[in-house]
């Protein structure tokens, strides 16, 4: 580090421009005001650990529900046609079992993290120590399959997860 001692000394001779008195006054006014837990302009958002973006999740689940409903209607149609034909004899009772024909069975859920970002230290409500905020962007995919026909249904949607990791101060 001796190689740089002269350069470091030169750098230290450079002095940052002094702050304005107005800035000090503004800080004084801000400190005098009661703290606001969360302001619209607050730069640090306060989210619970493991919280997710419900917009994405709701969107995805709605799409999944719609697709499952469509699949169910499509599978029920032949059965209703048979009921109208068999008018003289009572129709066989439909037994609903977990493995009933035409039912889609969940076969898997995958989560792919395609972006992770360390957003640095932030404060959270009610906690003195800071926490490190990590933001993950993921794509979640759910799959269903119909055992008899092999037909499969897959719903994929983006999601975002924010994780607050405790850090130890020094």
């Amino acid at each position, binding site marked *: 580090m001796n*190689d740089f001692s002269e350069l470091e000394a*030169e750098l*230290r001779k*450079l*002095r940052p421009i002094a*702050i304005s008195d107005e800035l000090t006054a503004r800080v004084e006014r801000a400190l005098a005001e009661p703290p606001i837990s969360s302001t619209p302009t607050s730069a*640090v958002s306060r989210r619970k650990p493991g919280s997710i973006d419900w917009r994405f999740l709701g969107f995805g689940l709605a799409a999944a529900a719609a697709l499952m409903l469509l699949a169910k209607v499509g599978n029920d149609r032949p059965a209703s046609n048979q009921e109208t034909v068999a008018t003289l004899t009572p129709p066989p009772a439909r037994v609903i079992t977990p493995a009933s024909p035409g039912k889609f069975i969940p076969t898997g859920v995958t989560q792919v993290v395609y972006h992770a970002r360390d*957003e640095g230290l932030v404060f959270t409500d009610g906690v*003195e120590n800071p926490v490190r905020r990590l933001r993950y962007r993921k794509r979640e995919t759910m799959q269903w399959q119909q055992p008899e026909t092999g037909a499969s249904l897959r719903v994929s949607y983006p999601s975002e997860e924010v994780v607050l990791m405790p850090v130890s101060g020094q």
Partner: protein
Amino acid sequence: MENVVTHEDWKACFCQHAPGLVLFARQWVRTPADAEDIVQEAFVRFWRKQRSPENRALLFATVRSIALDLLRRDSRRARREADAFLETEQTAAPSFDFDNGSQRALADAVGRLPREQREVVVMKIWNELTFADIGTVLGISQNTAASRYRYALSALKRNLVPHE
């Protein structure tokens, strides 16, 4: 309930650290006014939580976090800033009082450093943070912080040779 810190405490702390904090914040914004806004918000938030000048790494981390959030919040502005950073790494050159031409050349050389090296130099030289503190602020190891510092000084020394 003791909710208000004494006037002398916060003011002494602020007056001591504010110039270095503004210098630090200037790395992400183009104007001193924006930098002062960031420092104001960061210091108020820090002081309300800590009420002590200790843990300066947290103060700098707060400045950095607010500056980055500010850029993220305004997407157009963030794009503009990102473009500016891509075009040249000296858009947020630190602001100093110059006594002579050689000091100006030195300040310009600091401004030309890559941002990840410049922020380490700013924290180390003008704010006297330890490498451990710098590592905490940036989320890197202190060895990495020290390494970036050495790279920065090497680059400065190399760039200043023609001016000497």
